C-alpha cells in the first residue's frame, strides 16, 4: 500500500503538468492537510503568473535579417577562399603554436651546433686520429718527396721535407715532428670536442723549420713543399758572408686551406670554424 505523506504529495503537485488533474489520493490528502493545501495554492498561482507571460514576437524583418546575415557570411567565405575550409579554433591555434615552437627549437639547435654535425665529426675523425693524419699527410708528400729526391741532384739524398744539416738528428727528426703534429692535432681535437666554438692562437707554437737552400737552388721552379699546417711559414734566407734574413708569414685561413700536391691536383680540407 502506497503511503501518501506530505513530501510525496508536494512532489506530485510540483511535477504535474499545467492543467493536469491530481490523483484522488492526493486530493484527499490536500483536503485534510492545510500545509500541503497552502503549498498547492501557491504553486498554482505561481505557475499561472509565469505562464501569463506572453510570447514576444520577432520583428517583421527577422527573415530578411537572417538571410542577409547568411549572405554576408557566404560572401566573406568566398573572399577568403583559402582559409574557408579551415576552422580556426583555440585548439588549432594552440597546436600550430606548439609546432612552430618545436620547429624553432630544432632550428636553433641546428644553428648553434655546427661542430656537432656529421661534417664536423668526419673532420674530427680524420684529423684527430694520429695514424690517419700521418698517412694522409705523408702519402702524397712522401711520393712527392721520393720524386723530388730522385729528380734533384742532392748530394746526401735527403728528403726535402725532412732533411736537415745535422746527420745525427736525421733519424730523430721525423719522430719528433710526428710527435709535434700529434700534440697539435690533440689540441685541435680538444677544441673541436668541446660544444662551443673556441679560438686558439697557434702563433706561440713553434713551427718546424725547413731549411732548403740547396734544394731551392737546384729547383727549376721555385716551388717546394711545405707542411699544410696551421702554423706560420718561416722562411730563412742565408746570404753569403753570414748574413741571414728570416721572413715569417702568419698562417691565414678562411675556412679552408689548400694543399698543393705534386700531381697538380689540390686537396681542399675544411678547417674548423674559428680555429686557425
Amino acid at each position, binding site marked *: 500500500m502506497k503511503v501518501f505523506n506530505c513530501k510525496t504529495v508536494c512532489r506530485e503537485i*510540483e*511535477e504535474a*503538468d*499545467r492543467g493536469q488533474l491530481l490523483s484522488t489520493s492526493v486530493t484527499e490528502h490536500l483536503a485534510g492537510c492545510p500545509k500541503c493545501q497552502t503549498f498547492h495554492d*501557491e*504553486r498554482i*498561482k*505561481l*505557475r499561472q*503568473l*509565469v*505562464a*501569463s*507571460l*506572453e*510570447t*514576444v*514576437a*520577432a*520583428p517583421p524583418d*527577422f*527573415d530578411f*535579417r*537572417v*538571410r542577409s*546575415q*547568411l549572405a554576408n*557570411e557566404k560572401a566573406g567565405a568566398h573572399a577568403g577562399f583559402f582559409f574557408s575550409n579551415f576552422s580556426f579554433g583555440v585548439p588549432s591555434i594552440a597546436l600550430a603554436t606548439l609546432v612552430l615552437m618545436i620547429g624553432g627549437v630544432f632550428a636553433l639547435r641546428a644553428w648553434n651546433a655546427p661542430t656537432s654535425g656529421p661534417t664536423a665529426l668526419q673532420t674530427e675523425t680524420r684529423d684527430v686520429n694520429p695514424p690517419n693524419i700521418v698517412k694522409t699527410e705523408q702519402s702524397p708528400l712522401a711520393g712527392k718527396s721520393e720524386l723530388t729526391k730522385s729528380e734533384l741532384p742532392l748530394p746526401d739524398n735527403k728528403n726535402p721535407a725532412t732533411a736537415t744539416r745535422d746527420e745525427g738528428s736525421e733519424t730523430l727528426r721525423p719522430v719528433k715532428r710526428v710527435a709535434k703534429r700529434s700534440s697539435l692535432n690533440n689540441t685541435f681535437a680538444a677544441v673541436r670536442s668541446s660544444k662551443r666554438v673556441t679560438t686558439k692562437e697557434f702563433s706561440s707554437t713553434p713551427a718546424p723549420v725547413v731549411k732548403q737552400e740547396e734544394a731551392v737552388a737546384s729547383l727549376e721552379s721555385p716551388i717546394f713543399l711545405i707542411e699544410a699546417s696551421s702554423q706560420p711559414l718561416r722562411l730563412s734566407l742565408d746570404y753569403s758572408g753570414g748574413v741571414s734574413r728570416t721572413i715569417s708569414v702568419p698562417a691565414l685561413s678562411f675556412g679552408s686551406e689548400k694543399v698543393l700536391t705534386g700531381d697538380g691536383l689540390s686537396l681542399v680540407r675544411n678547417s674548423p670554424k674559428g680555429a686557425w
Partner: protein
Amino acid sequence: METLSSIDELSFPVALRQEVIADLTSDHALLEATRTGDEDAFAELVSRYRNQITSYIYRMTNDYDGAVDLAQETFVRLYRAVDRYQSTYAFSTYIYRIATNLAISELRKRKRRRLVSLTGFFQSHDGSENCELDPIDDRPLQDIELVATERRIAVQRAISTLPEKYKAPLILRDVEGRSYEEIARILQTSEGTVKSRISRARDFLREKMRAYL
C-alpha cells in the same frame, strides 16, 4: 510517364495521404530540403520558430534587442550545422539547445562585464529597462489591463534575477510548457536534475513574488 502535380493524384488512402503531407511539411523534412539547398524550406523553418526562439531568449536575457540578435544567430548556426543534424530527437529540441547555449553565453558575458546602465538611474518604472524588483504598489489601480501588464513585468524581472542554471528549466517548463524529458534533452542533463532545478527555481520565485501570491 505523366508527372504528378499534387499529392492527391497518388491515390493513397486518406489517412496515409495526410501522413505523407504531414511528413512533407515536418521539421525534419524541411531540414532535409534545406540540406539539399532549398532556401524556401529554411525560410519556412525560420517563420515557424522565430517567435518562439525570440521569446525564449528574451525571457532568458530580459533584453529584446539582444534576444533578436541571438535568435538570428541561432538560425544562422542552424543553417551552418544543417549537415551535422541528426534526426534522432525532435527538431525543436535541437534548435532550443542552440538558443539556450547562446543565451547562457550571453548571460555569462554580461556577468563578466558587469554592465551598469547609466540611464537606469533615471528610468521610469515602465519596465522598459532592467531594474531591481520593486515591491507591489498598494494604490488602487484603474485598469485591469494595466494590472496584468505590471504583473507580467514583475514576473519577468523576478525571472531575470534567478540564477542561470534555474532560469532555463523554469522558462522551458512553465513558460514554454515543455516536458521534463524534452527539457533534459535540451539542457543535456538528467530528468532528476531538471525536476530539482525547477523546484528550486519556483522556491526562489515564490520568495520574490510573495506580494503577488
